[in-house]
């Protein structure tokens, strides 16, 4: 008897349920068993992959990965239970049902990541509802798979053997994906393409089953067409995944994306809508060219206009060169040192014509030295002191960044501040994160500085806070000698006045062993309504 004949007999037997329960003596059936068991392996791998993709996508888009993973896995496992329970209602045409389920799970699971990402970016519907609907649907279908395979195999293998083999292949498949997902798939293929890849595998299992049982499926053209159709759609999705992601990202940013790159440190995205150029780092707005002059004039001039003797300036962070542009307006400044961790940032803002126009080509100034290093390590080795220091770091949204707003860090900066020099710190919003802002003031004071906190309205950000710090008391400048668009001596003086809703609150300094600032900042911005 040929192999295919036996397979056909088996398949028809599966249909008619006539073959005795167990017949281990059949010499050739192990091959079919192996085929079905390897499909269990693939099916299990796909099942776990969809779960991981959904969990990762939800944490990427919604944050709070504990909650996202926990609820996605919970919903998914529950749905699988529902699927397993529903499988008892499939009484006839087990193989046909299996093929249909494979096609459905391949299409739905494979496209889910792409569709969810697009729906989030384009705001097509309530994202969480769509997410859990998709997770539930895929879970039900995946839950149907294993019981069906077990029933198809049941006629060939004794029950104890069957359970042992099917479940061990099931768990092996899960193991393979759990290792491959974080190491290879997520970092190299991305979530959307990984989704399509596993969809293709499911569709492949459907095609394989059609071929294995081809005698049984003779004439069922619709099923074959459906399987090939699904395979083609998923293949196209796999190829176009990069384009799809870019498209979705451009919806995410409202304005057309004119540049996007991923450096080892961050995702840099530049958008442009007519005259408005915006920089996003990891999706957070850094500036809008419409009002960035307000931010950077407020950051630099209240401190520097008062330092006619200043020769050396230091800018920490701020690789866009906009703060440097303001500093270079002062002819007495002989040298500016810009320390930014990410060479991709300084390279971009030193070469792209549009961005060079924006920062006045500051990054190509002969008076500028660019250091692409970690600010702390550089400061620890640097011996020079500076007359004017700008600390323009991202907000203290995690423990690592919180260190750049701590007492020891400000002590380190103090060592590099020349006599009579001044330090300015961007310190988040005194309106949205009032307690955080005054915590930074208290931290600078604990490090031995005299502080002069002030604020300015930057429409893209809202009311924004800055702190001048030095060894001596500060006085706002009487005049500004350089060309400015925003500041006048009167507005500058008024910035140091805090209205009642932003007035000083008692605050503990941000000590490294507590990092109270990080917790405060997180809590305040979570409640901020903008």
């Amino acid at each position, binding site marked *: 008897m040929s192999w295919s004949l036996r397979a056909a007999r088996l398949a028809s037997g599966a249909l008619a349920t006539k073959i005795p329960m167990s017949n281990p003596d059949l010499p050739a059936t192990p091959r079919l068993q192996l085929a079905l068991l390897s499909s269990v392996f693939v099916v299990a791998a796909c099942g776990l992959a969809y779960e991981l993709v959904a969990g990762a996508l939800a944490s990427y888009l919604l944050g709070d990965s504990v909650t996202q993973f926990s609820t996605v896995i919970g919903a998914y496992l529950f749905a699988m239970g529902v699927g397993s329970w529903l499988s008892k209602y499939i009484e006839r045409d087990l193989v046909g049902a299996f093929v249909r389920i494979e096609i459905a799970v391949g299409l739905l699971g494979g496209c889910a990541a792409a569709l969810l990402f697009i729906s989030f970016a384009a705001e097509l519907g309530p994202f969480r509802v769509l997410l859990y609907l998709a997770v539930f649907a895929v879970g039900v279908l995946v839950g149907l798979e294993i019981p069906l395979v077990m029933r198809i195999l049941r006629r060939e293998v004794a029950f104890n053997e069957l359970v042992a083999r099917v479940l061990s292949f099931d768990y092996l498949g899960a193991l393979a994906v759990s*290792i491959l997902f974080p190491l290879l798939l997520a970092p190299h293929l991305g979530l959307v393409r990984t989704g399509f890849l596993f969809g293709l595998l499911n569709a492949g299992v459907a095609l394989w089953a059609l071929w294995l049982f081809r005698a049984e499926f003779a004439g069922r053209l619709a099923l074959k067409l459906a399987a090939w159709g699904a395979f083609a759609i998923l293949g196209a999705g796999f190829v176009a995944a990069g384009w799809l992601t870019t498209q979705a990202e451009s919806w995410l940013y409202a304005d057309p994306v004119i540049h996007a790159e991923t450096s080892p440190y961050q995702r840099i995205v530049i958008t442009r809508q007519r005259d408005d150029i915006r920089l996003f780092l990891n999706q957070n707005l850094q500036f809008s060219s419409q009002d960035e002059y307000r931010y950077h004039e407020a950051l630099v001039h209240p401190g520097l206009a008062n330092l006619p003797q200043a020769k050396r300036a230091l800018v920490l962070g701020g690789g866009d060169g906009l703060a440097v542009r303001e500093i270079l307006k002062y002819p007495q400044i002989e040298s500016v040192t810009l320390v930014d961790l990410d060479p991709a940032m300084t390279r971009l803002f030193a070469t792209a014509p549009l961005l060079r126009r924006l920062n006045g080509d500051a990054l190509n100034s002969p008076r500028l030295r660019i250091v692409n290093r970690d600010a702390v390590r550089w400061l620890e080795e640097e011996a020079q002191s500076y007359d004017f220091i700008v600390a323009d770091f991202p907000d203290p949204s995690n*423990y690592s960044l919180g260190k750049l707003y701590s007492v020891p860090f400000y002590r380190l900066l103090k060592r590099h501040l020349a006599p009579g020099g001044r330090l300015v710190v961007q310190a988040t919003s005194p309106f949205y994160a009032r307690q955080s802002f005054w915590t930074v003031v208290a931290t600078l004071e604990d490090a031995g500085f005299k502080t002069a906190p002030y604020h300015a309205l930057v429409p893209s950000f809202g009311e924004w806070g800055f702190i001048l710090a030095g060894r001596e008391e500060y006085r706002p400048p009487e005049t500004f000698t350089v060309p400015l668009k925003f500041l006048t001596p009167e507005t500058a003086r008024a910035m140091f006045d805090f209205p009642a809703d932003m007035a000083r609150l008692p605050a503990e300094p941000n000590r490294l062993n507590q990092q109270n600032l990080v917790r405060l900042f997180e809590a305040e911005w979570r409640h901020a309504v903008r």
Partner: protein
Amino acid sequence: MRRRDFLAVAASLPLIACTKKSAPPLPPGTLSGGDFALGHRLRAGDFPAPSETRRVPLLIVGAGIAGLSAAWRLERAGLRDFLIYELEEAPGGNARFAENEVSAYPLGAHYLPLPTREARALRELLADLGALEGDPQAARPHYDERLLCAAPQERVYRQGFWEEGLLPRLGVSRAVREEYARFFDLMQALREARDEAGRRAFALPLAFSSPAPRWRSLDGITMRQWLFDHGLTSPELYWYVDYCCRDDFGTRAAETSAWAGLHYFACRNGEAANAAPETVLTAPEGNGWIVKRLAPRFADRLVTGALAFRLAQTRRRASADFWLAAEGRSLRIEAEAIVWAAPPFMLPKVAAGLPAPIAAACRAETAPWLVANLTLSAPPAAGAGAGLAWDNVLYGSPALGYVVATHQHLSAAPGPTVLTYYHALAEMPPAAARELLLRRSQPEWAALILAELSRAHADIGRLTKRLDIHRHGHAMVRPVPGLLWGGSRAMLAAGWGRVFFAHADVSGLSLCEEANYRGVLAAERALALLGQRAVSLL
């Protein structure tokens, strides 16, 4: 290709692909420490007769925290005429450290809790080293902020998630949480408990603890027994308590004296003006920062690589013979008093005429430890839940997790780092564990450690560029029931004629505070023997 061949290959492909990808080559590294060859040599005893005899008023054997504290105490009393002989190539003992191009990192003890009110000499020492500002005996002194462990201090990995703190709380039933609360209420009560004379139930140094039998008798049962006697039976709490026993004593809760186990939770009452009470003092090199600041003061009197192989005394003086391996000769030091700040377990092998009860006390079982330092090209990828902390523990692991050497650095950028992984081999009898510690090669340990850590960090194998193993064959005495208050520690504390024993193992708890206390106490007694009376720092 025939159909069945195709099927077989197709079925095995994913497996082949995954084994190839998930097993990068094992990282290189050294295998150091382990007093194994040495123990053998001591037993054989074939050392040449001393070729030279030197005389000094006072000799210290061992340059760990106890020996260095003794030296520090002698200098404070104005006695500079002493020598320190150390077996290893560098001072530090259990507080030793090493350094590579990425960071300094510990080879042993890695933190010091805020000192208790009773740890008077230790506070003086910290002030002297610049770690404590203002009045050392203040209720809430100000500590050097760079030494206070930066937040977040610790996290635990359980069921795929990292949680802040060491006690699992996510997905833990209310009954278990209530048990936690009850346990900590009991510990708080013990922390505040005092006897009629005002002595604390559990003090640190433990010599200041109350002798009242209602607490001392707890040395007769195990920590496990105590938990069960108090209806504390949840696996989560048991794991936590067992973890703490293994972490501090290298001994499972089922074998640890309940007095010792409770002491861990109830003795700490140190506070700081600028930190929360549970904050610890640490540095990239662990407790090595103390050695780094203290040992150079005695550099001119410190001899390393010197194995004491004979200790003897007469009515007039004591002497110690050393084998100087580098010089290939032996040397005798005669002193009026000797501070033996090396582990007591070595004494029966070297001390001529050591009274049998003291020798018996010295033979208490010790715990073997493994410390592995993993040099990583980048921190492991963030998993689900809380981010990288200083101390990172895997729930249910036989090992103790790892601390991050670069955690105290101010830098915010993710760069290369060193993880110090601890494993007290408490899961089997000490002798068998010691044999295993000696027998396994660096690649074997590396494979085991990476497999264990890959439970939480899938990328650990790829990121680890070096994995250096340091072995402590006899890291610490095991505080099993009866060890602390059964008489053997008191026997050692009394000393032996002109030899004063100064080592944390004399107390029975291998803690920096005890090492310092024993070192200072032995130095003060030796000073008294030399006729110098000084006000005790203790």
